[in-house]
């Protein structure tokens, strides 16, 4: 079975803090994705990566950056967290168009 793990299920941070969300997959997938999920808005793509050190912006990249130094690991970085980044963050990895999701990190910024 494909396994995608995320470093934290719940996270509380203060405004202005630098936040790291980590995602690890064990299926040697080329593609990895970061989404945020908000009620009524579905999943919105923040960034994705199609290879080590390769990344592209998704639909809502502002305020975020990413890092992929190893194939299995994809990190989402909030350089200076703000309250409007309070959300559920979902990581996925995929082969072709089939994406496999981690359990999510619920981030609260106070």
């Amino acid at each position, binding site marked *: 079975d494909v396994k995608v793990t995320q470093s934290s299920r719940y996270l509380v941070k203060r405004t202005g803090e630098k936040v790291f969300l980590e995602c690890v997959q064990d299926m040697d997938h080329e593609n990895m994705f970061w989404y945020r999920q908000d009620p*009524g808005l579905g999943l919105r793509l923040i960034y994705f990566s199609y290879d080590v050190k390769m990344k592209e912006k998704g639909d809502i990249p502002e305020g975020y950056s990413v890092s992929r130094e190893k194939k299995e690991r994809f990190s989402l970085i909030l350089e200076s967290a703000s309250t409007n980044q309070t959300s559920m963050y979902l990581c996925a990895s995929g082969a072709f168009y089939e994406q496999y999701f981690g359990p999510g990190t619920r981030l609260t910024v106070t």
Partner: protein
Amino acid sequence: AQSVTQPDIHLTVSEGASLELRCNYSYGATPYLFWYVQSPGQGLQLLLKYFSGDTLVQGIKGFEAEFKRSQSSFNLRKPSVHWSDAAEYFCAVGPNAGGTSYGKLTFGQGTILTVHP
């Protein structure tokens, strides 16, 4: 750009009743189509997918979906709902364009399903 619409934000059905969740997409060609389910507090799980061929696809947990090109729809169905089916359901599309799409999906807004005993 492609888009996905799930017209029903919330749906309530009784246990044992049939279920149909609607999904409409906008895309210039036939896209790849998916349904995912998210149980409370969990990530998304793939229920079924359509790439080509038979327009009626079977998935896990007794779900099926039918692709209707003329209606740009990919509705999810189940003949008899169980209480454990209460969850949020997402329809998603991917461009059938090969090349540099990198497996990106566009998701609908989701439908929250409540099941009454």
